[in-house]
């Protein structure tokens, strides 16, 4: 019977690993992504069944354990479902951060539990003591960093936490190094003398996660979340060593490695190196020292929604550049109505999507898809850039750094080298923006000073709503 249970579990685990790899693979292609996500969820379900199979076969599962499993599963599952259904699409980055933090917390708790209450089980000889200690240390360290880092990332994205001033000074490196040293000392102590220093390790690594994440600006946060996501894979693999599960090790290693690649891909898209994201602080703080980024605006043209509507009426080709401001104002649906009216009026409308538009790479595509905007109208940067010179009107909606011509012209600018949309090539540019505040980078945008640029100040949603009214009054799209 024991042999049978183990065989079945091996078979289930193998299938689960296969499905997981197919899942990760498929998630990187648009056509297969949804199926792949289902495959991966089936794989997790299978692996849970596998654990139960072997436990029931060995008759090692007690009734009280079953009760505790049900309680934990019911609460966690319920909250998971509610969160996933309720959360708005604009809040996706912080949601992922929250989920990720909870995964890290889980690995941390498992390692803590095993250490604080050693299991006196005769079958429990799957690892030597050193390995067990090492994997517990890894699991606690990575788990804590993932948890606290993710929660800080979430709080910053939600606007609950701002970036404290002191985190931008060199001082923060001292604190972080100090915390890292504490963690290291605690780790060595645990490895040599057992679990006495365990709380020191928890303390050190938790605060290290906070310390490192706190200094990172909002623009770089997606990269951090992706990196922490990779860490939680490592934490899972370490937990696999702790409880002796090869499935956990392979899945954790896969997510860890894949997460690392994804982080690198994101960094490339933003023209940032991982090192500068982690240790460079926010972009704005580094740029205040260089003169090129400062300076006042000298030639701002502000205009009303009515003027904007009149110009649009005369236009034939319009390109929309959506950005973070659009996401914040949740104006994607209003935007869709405006573009519907324009299309009905015979205006050719396209959308220029910068790789890091929105709050996370690919986030803008999700938001616009939510508002029913046809996928084929969304153009990637390299595709649309040659089109700008032949474009009558560009509407920049809450985007800033991604349309800053400085990135191409000013070698001293911190943005220099970042790929940008060449909106200034168009005949007229309208920038819809709440105020003159700088973008994430904290850098002046030369675009706003150009003669063919006009600013329309206001909340994106409100301005678009007004624009829709004006367009209808002009008879554009009224047949619709």
């Amino acid at each position, binding site marked *: 019977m024991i042999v049978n249970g183990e065989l079945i579990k091996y078979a289930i685990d193998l299938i689960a690993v296969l499905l997981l790899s197919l899942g990760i693979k498929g998630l990187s292609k648009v056509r297969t*992504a949804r199926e792949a*996500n289902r495959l*991966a969820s089936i*794989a*997790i379900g299978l692996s849970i069944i596998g*654990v139960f199979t072997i*436990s029931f076969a060995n008759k090692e599962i007690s009734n*009280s*354990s079953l009760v505790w*499993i049900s*309680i934990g599963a019911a609460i*966690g599952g319920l909250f*998971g*479902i509610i969160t*996933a259904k309720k*959360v708005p*699409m604009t809040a996706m*980055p912080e949601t*992922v951060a929250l*989920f*990720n933090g*909870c*995964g890290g917390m*889980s690995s941390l*708790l*498992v390692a803590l*539990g095993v250490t*604080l209450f050693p*299991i006196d*089980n005769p079958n429990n000889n799957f*690892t*030597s003591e050193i390995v067990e200690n090492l994997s517990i240390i890894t699991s606690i360290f990575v788990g804590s960093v993932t948890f606290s880092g993710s929660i800080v990332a979430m709080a910053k994205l939600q606007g609950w936490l701002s970036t404290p001033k002191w985190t931008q000074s060199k001082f923060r490196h001292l604190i972080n190094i100090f915390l890292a040293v504490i963690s290291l000392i605690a780790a060595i102590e645990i490895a040599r003398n057992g679990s006495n220093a365990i709380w020191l390790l928890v303390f050190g690594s938790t605060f290290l996660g906070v310390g490192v994440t706190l200094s990172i600006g909002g623009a770089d946060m*997606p990269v951090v979340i992706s990196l922490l*996501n990779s860490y939680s*894979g490592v934490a899972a*693999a370490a*937990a*696999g060593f702790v*409880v*002796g*599960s090869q*499935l956990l090790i*392979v*899945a*954790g*290693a*896969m*997510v860890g*490695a894949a*997460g*690392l690649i*994804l982080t690198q*891909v994101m960094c490339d*898209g933003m023209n940032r190196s991982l090192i500068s994201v982690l240790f460079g602080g926010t972009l704005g703080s580094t740029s205040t020292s260089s003169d090129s980024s400062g300076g006042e605006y000298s030639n701002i043209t502000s205009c009303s929604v009515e003027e904007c509507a009149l110009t649009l009426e005369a236009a034939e080709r319009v390109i929309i550049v959506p950005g973070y401001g659009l996401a914040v104002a949740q104006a994607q649906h209003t935007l869709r109505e405006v573009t519907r009216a324009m299309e009905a009026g015979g205006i050719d409308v396209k959308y220029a999507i910068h790789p890091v538009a929105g709050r*996370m*790479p*690919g986030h803008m595509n*999700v938001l616009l898809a939510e508002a029913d905007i046809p996928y*084929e109208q969304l153009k*990637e940067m390299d595709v649309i850039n040659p089109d700008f010179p032949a474009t009558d009107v560009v509407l920049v909606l809450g985007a800033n750094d991604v349309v800053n011509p400085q990135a191409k012209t000013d070698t001293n600018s911190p943005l220099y080298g970042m790929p940008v949309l060449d909106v200034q090539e168009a005949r007229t540019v309208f920038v819809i923006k709440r105020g003159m505040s700088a973008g994430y980078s904290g850098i002046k945008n030369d675009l706003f000073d150009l003669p063919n640029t006009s600013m329309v100040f206001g909340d994106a949603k409100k301005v678009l709503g007004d624009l829709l009214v004006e367009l209808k009054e002009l008879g554009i799209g009224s047949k619709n």
Partner: protein
Amino acid sequence: MSFLSEALWVLLLGSLLGLELIGKVPPTLHTPLMSGANAISGITIIAALTLVIKAGNQMPLQIIGSVALGFALFNVIGGFLVTDRMLAMFSRKSNRRGSKK
């Protein structure tokens, strides 16, 4: 020691597989991929489950395991559902486009 050597091989091969699986990802999919990978990392639910089961009748350990299980399941279920919600928007789009033509 056999578990250890096997486990290290598994770790190595798993990491290499992970590096190979994701090559070129279109920017559109960065967010869903991250969210999906995050859900998969909730596989620590296996560790939490094992902990509760191995705990026998040790109540403190059962409670810790149960909380760990809750956190992990929150990650798994929430992660997959949210990823599906995002991806549903893309596929709905292509379906409608298909039916129009």
